[in-house]
């Protein structure tokens, strides 16, 4: 499954974007078809409304996404005040594409479009996805610790890029 990942600032400004391509040998390199490629940022942008809605909910359970997929899990305690509200899980969908999101403490939006794989109905692995986001969050904070980096600026560091890609390889199918 290819993924399109972006970090979006508070004015919908892109801070970082990347496309991940699965290089598993059995199904070859899978990329987004070109019509989706030129549409991806728009799909992602369209989901930001929902991200912002969930951002301010006590227990961010999305009603937009397909609830049966990727809900539950041991993390999702029913007690609203203790549930994780950084990782929002699947928040939206668009013709077979699933969209997951994560919000950092300063309101940076990590959003990812998960492409469809050849073998469909493959649910998103919520746990791995969450850890991927958390690790990127950590990398983001490390970037932020750089005194020369100002919040909301695009992250141009190739190391950051490399690390994020390594994480994608590790956690995302």
């Amino acid at each position, binding site marked *: 499954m290819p993924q399109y990942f972006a970090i979006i600032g508070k004015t*919908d400004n892109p801070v970082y974007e990347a496309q991940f391509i699965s290089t598993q040998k059995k199904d070859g390199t899978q990329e987004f078809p070109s019509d989706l490629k030129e549409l991806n940022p*728009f*799909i992602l942008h369209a989901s930001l*409304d929902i991200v912002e809605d969930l951002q301010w909910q006590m227990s961010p359970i999305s009603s937009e996404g397909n609830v049966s997929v990727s809900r539950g899990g041991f993390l999702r305690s029913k007690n609203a005040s203790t549930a994780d509200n950084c990782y929002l899980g699947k928040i939206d969908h668009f013709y077979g594409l699933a969209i997951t999101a994560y919000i950092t403490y300063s309101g940076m939006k990590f959003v990812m479009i998960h492409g469809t794989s050849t073998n469909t109905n493959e649910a998103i692995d919520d746990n791995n996805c969450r850890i991927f986001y958390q690790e990127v969050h950590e990398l983001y904070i490390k970037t932020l610790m750089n005194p020369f980096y100002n919040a909301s600026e695009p992250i141009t560091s190739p190391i950051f890029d490399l690390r994020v890609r390594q994480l994608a390889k590790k956690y995302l199918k």
Partner: protein
Amino acid sequence: MINFSYEHYMNLLFHLECSDENIPSEIARRIVSHAIAPVITVTSTPELDKHIQDTYSIDSLYMLLRFFGGCVSDRDQASESKANAPHSSSSLTTTKTTRARSRSNSLFQRDSTQSQYIRFTRPLPDLVERHDKNDMLFDHHSLESYLRQYLELVEKFTFDSTSHQLLKKSLYHNFFSLAISSTTTLSPFESFNHPIMSLIALDITNSQSYEDAKGLLIKFKNLHNTIDKFPIYINTYDMLPVFLLCYNADSPEEVQQCEELSVKIKKQLFVESISLPLWKNSYQTEPFIKLHQPVMSSLDEMIYFLQSDEQNTLPIELTNTTYDMLEKLVYALLIPFMQRKIAFWEETVLQPKKSIFHGSKFLKKLMSRASTSSHQQQNILTKDHDGNEYFASSSPELLLRKLADWSIMLSDFKTGYATYEILSHDLELFPKYLASCLEWEAVSLLMGAQNIVTVKMMKNDISPLIDRALDAYDACAANTHLSNKKIGPTNESTSLEPVLSYETRCLILSSELFLSLSDTWTSTPYAINYLESILEESRLGPCSRIMIWERLSDCYDLRVDPRIKSKVEQVQKQDNLEEPADNEHRILNSQDDLNPSNIVSQGLTRKRKAAFFRLLAAKMWAEQGQWKQVKWCLDNITDIYSRVGLVNRDDLILTRLREEYNIAVSDSK
């Protein structure tokens, strides 16, 4: 100033000077009321038609009267002319009063005086002959070709400077009205298109007399015997014949004749008559006004008239006289007749049914459980000439259905709803009947209780009803499919289409009514859901599908939390005034970023989603070569995307579409 009426809005393309007005209030309700308005057939004599043709170059009386369909009190055709000041001001006041009345907050609005719509159609024999065997509401190909022609006209009539916001909405509502109505289909499963009044016209100037009247009436009464394959679910007894006596107002003898004839007809034939001074010398000296096409018409007629350049005109005075005549016809004859019939059916069909249960819910439950087996014997279908089985016109089921249909035609949604509810229990074994019944049960609820619909009602009552209706339509499709398989390998797609067209209507109708509710935050997800089902299931043509896509964008645009509605509008106004800041500047200067004016509304709108669907529509319009539409969509989303660095790159679709549009425009020049 001309009055911006409902019909102006629906025909906005021909009234572009009004394109900065607002959408008329309760537009969805108005369209639905209009789409199910009582149908009046117009029967004329060849002499009369010839006479009309000679004076006004309009083919027939029907062709003349069809311009006057619509909201009777709006006097829309008359307000066409700006010169006609006194009349248009009077029509302004009438619309105002009716609107004020219809705004009443009662639980179910029962107000038969509120604006009444009517539709005109051809004589019954024509309808029966043209009647399609497969009960189709509309076929997707005609709808698509109509839309394409309409878009061509849009292309022709508009300029780059034309403001298009309202026009686009009007375009959709025009499309919507055609998708939910048709004046020619005589469905066995619902009675909205079954004529209620038969207008039989006589030409007094051509000295047509009592004998002609008698002959025409007998012919009408005997239609079911004389016409081959007369549908068993139509009944001329439920149609009110009325004579229309057309005369020359300048001749005192003719006026005299009219009066005498009308007395005689009433005495001997027990039929009312109404007179219309179709001719008068002073008419010719008066300004003529251009007539516009009526809002509701059959798809075939719409297509025909879009293609023809014919422009019909009538003298102003005649237009007003005709409206006077119609008002009399509707309020003195049509509505009382319908009320009488409704009362009669209530007494003879509905009450006996109710009294069995003595109003006790417990007993009712018990009975209905016990009697499910006996139901099969109670409901008897009759075979028609082609071997299809329908409820006959005299069957209690069809009478109940008529009772409900007519009730909502007269805006009595409460009776309508209650009757559909009772009826739906009887129809459980007949999916085709059940589907339509459930659909209109939901519609009457949405129409009648519009102001008090709550989240709970949507979730627990209306949405399940619509889902049941859709399931029932699905069941019909499955049945048709099965029976066709038994018969042999027929073309699957054609056999499924009729059901699909009704299912599409159900979806598009409910989505529009949900959108018209006041709490759009909770209602739009339903609307979106139904529209998406249309895209998934039905076989609409490409342009029709894009209309639905655009409507999806409208839905998202309307999705605003009611608590912040005023705030969002304010911010939008401010934004429009401000110059959009330079992109580069924004990205780099976003340290102290968050605009405090919108932190409250954050997440409580779906404007980005709306923009996205508009973009998709633009992409699809481009594929269809509809560059005007592409431009309008792009114009629409410029504001929201201009500030977003993410989406304005050269390799992305937005830039590509802009380039393609520029190329297409420069090519065409």
